[in-house]
């Protein structure tokens, strides 16, 4: 069943295009009343990064900084019948030297086969965003992020692994007297641009390439009746395979990632506290004699405080930490050709957000960072040149409709 729906790697864009055409064909037929027509929304944001050392989204350490993070998207949603909804979103994204592409972000058919006041269940088929933590499903939309860029749990390296699944999602939403419980489970094939993961794991750009296999991502959520308390547990189990080239010194290796993510948020008046903790168990095996089996466990977490000064201003602060191997937090056992600072990142941040209207948002942040684990290899090709202590000033302007 999933094979039918699966957008094969090279044709992901093409299939998305076909789905868009279907939309255009279906949309006019179902616009009965003027106010019942399809919903169209979009966003665009531009980031600016200036760092004391190391590169973030382009050459941020050059004297003028970089405008290397641009994100824009448009989406449509239409409900041709009471229980069927079609939705699609296309995004353009430029992220330093890592990414410059236009993609179908999601394209899905949503069939809510049970729609009671207290209990709703349904299936979504197509390309579906992965429910993982508080922010993964809308990770490219500035208005839904708690800061200019997401904390390290969501970092760029695992972006393509976690972004979306081509397959299906089962969802359940249950309203009870004590609050709302929700559950989503995605089964399907994950994204396929895995160079950053490959370098991070093999510590060099190997001749072959990584391929995703079928994966599971699920999330169980709770929200109390006022929405002030939110809790979630997310789990992902992703498998990858290393496809060697002919004469490769590496064998047909297997990788497995198990991610356990705990999320909590509490709002008290104008203050919101948010924390998330990720434990990621990795298994890398069958690569042959040059790459012995390794089973490191990574860990990352953050705590963020938001203070809404009024309807237009928000001040926020966050401590964010990431350890590539929780049994070697300082990189003591790293090989000599890899800087120890790539084992961790500890990021202290303060920021201010201004919403002059619903359409516009301007943010400014200052980060003091110890460690380089979250740096991308594409933006920092010389691994030995990275500096352990650095700081970043960043701005972002966002528009939505």
């Amino acid at each position, binding site marked *: 069943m999933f094979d039918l729906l699966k957008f094969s790697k090279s044709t992901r864009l093409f299939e998305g295009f076909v789905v868009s055409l279907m939309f255009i064909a279906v949309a006019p037929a179902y616009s009965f*009343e003027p*106010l*019942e027509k399809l*919903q169209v*929304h979009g*966003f665009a944001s531009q980031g600016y990064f200036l760092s004391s050392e190391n590169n973030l989204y382009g050459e941020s350490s050059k004297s003028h900084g970089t405008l290397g993070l641009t994100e824009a*998207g448009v*989406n449509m*949603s239409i*409900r041709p019948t*009471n229980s069927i*909804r079609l*939705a*699609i*979103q296309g995004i353009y994204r430029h992220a330093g030297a890592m990414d410059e592409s236009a993609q179908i*972000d*999601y394209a*899905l058919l*949503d069939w*809510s086969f049970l*729609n009671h*006041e207290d209990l*709703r269940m349904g299936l*979504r088929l197509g390309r*579906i*965003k992965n429910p993982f933590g508080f922010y993964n*499903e*809308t990770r490219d*939309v500035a*208005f*839904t992020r708690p800061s200019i860029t997401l904390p390290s749990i969501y970092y760029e390296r695992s972006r393509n692994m976690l972004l979306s699944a081509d397959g299906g999602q089962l*969802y359940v*939403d249950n*309203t009870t007297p004590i609050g*709302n419980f929700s559950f989503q489970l995605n089964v399907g094939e994950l994204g396929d641009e895995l160079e950053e993961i490959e370098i991070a794991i093999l510590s060099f750009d190997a001749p072959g390439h990584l391929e995703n296999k079928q994966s599971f991502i699920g999330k169980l959520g709770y929200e109390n*009746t*006022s*929405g002030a308390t939110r809790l979630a547990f997310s789990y992902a189990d992703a498998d990858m395979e290393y496809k060697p080239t002919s004469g490769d010194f590496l064998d047909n290796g297997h990788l497995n990632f198990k991610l356990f993510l705990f999320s909590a948020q509490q*709002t008290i008046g104008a203050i919101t506290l948010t924390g998330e903790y990720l434990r990621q168990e990795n298994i890398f095996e069958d690569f042959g004699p040059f790459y012995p089996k390794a089973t490191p466990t990574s860990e990352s977490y953050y705590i963020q405080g938001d203070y*809404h000064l009024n*309807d237009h201003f928000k001040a926020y602060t966050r401590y964010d930490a990431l350890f590539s191997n929780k049994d070697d937090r300082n990189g003591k056992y790293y090989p000599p050709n890899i800087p120890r600072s790539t084992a961790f990142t500890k990021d202290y941040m303060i920021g201010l957000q201004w*919403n002059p*209207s*619903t359409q516009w948002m301007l943010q400014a942040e200052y980060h003091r960072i110890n460690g380089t684990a979250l740096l991308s290899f594409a933006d920092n090709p010389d691994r030995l040149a990275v500096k352990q202590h650095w700081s970043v000033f960043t701005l972002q302007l966002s528009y*939505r409709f």
Partner: protein
Amino acid sequence: MERISFFVLCFICLASPVSQGVELFVNSRVPITSLSATEARNIFTMRTQQWPDRQPIKVFVLNDDHPLHKQFSKETLRVFPYKLRRIWDRNIYSGTGEAPTTLDSEEEMIKAISTLAGSIGYANKGGENVRLIKVQ
């Protein structure tokens, strides 16, 4: 000193106009007369999508900055307007749901509720073909 403050307080009370309450309205064909605050919140966060008779709910709101929207959001739903916006953004940008239709004025709001089956919204006062809903 206390006396003066008392008079000042009285003066403020008398001088300020009685703030008009914001009321919840539905199209007159919607088969309900009251909602709990939680039910209203579930409708405005787009979670509940059908009325008890299974006709789809159409939600209308005013702009986030409209005083009536702020009042409705804080007093009736007991949610900050920015929280509502966050929920709607999560819906539309993840592909899992929709956002209410935003209108520019109270007149448009009453007109939409009175003409469209299954619609819900809020205003200071009603009109023809709309029903006032008590929020308990």
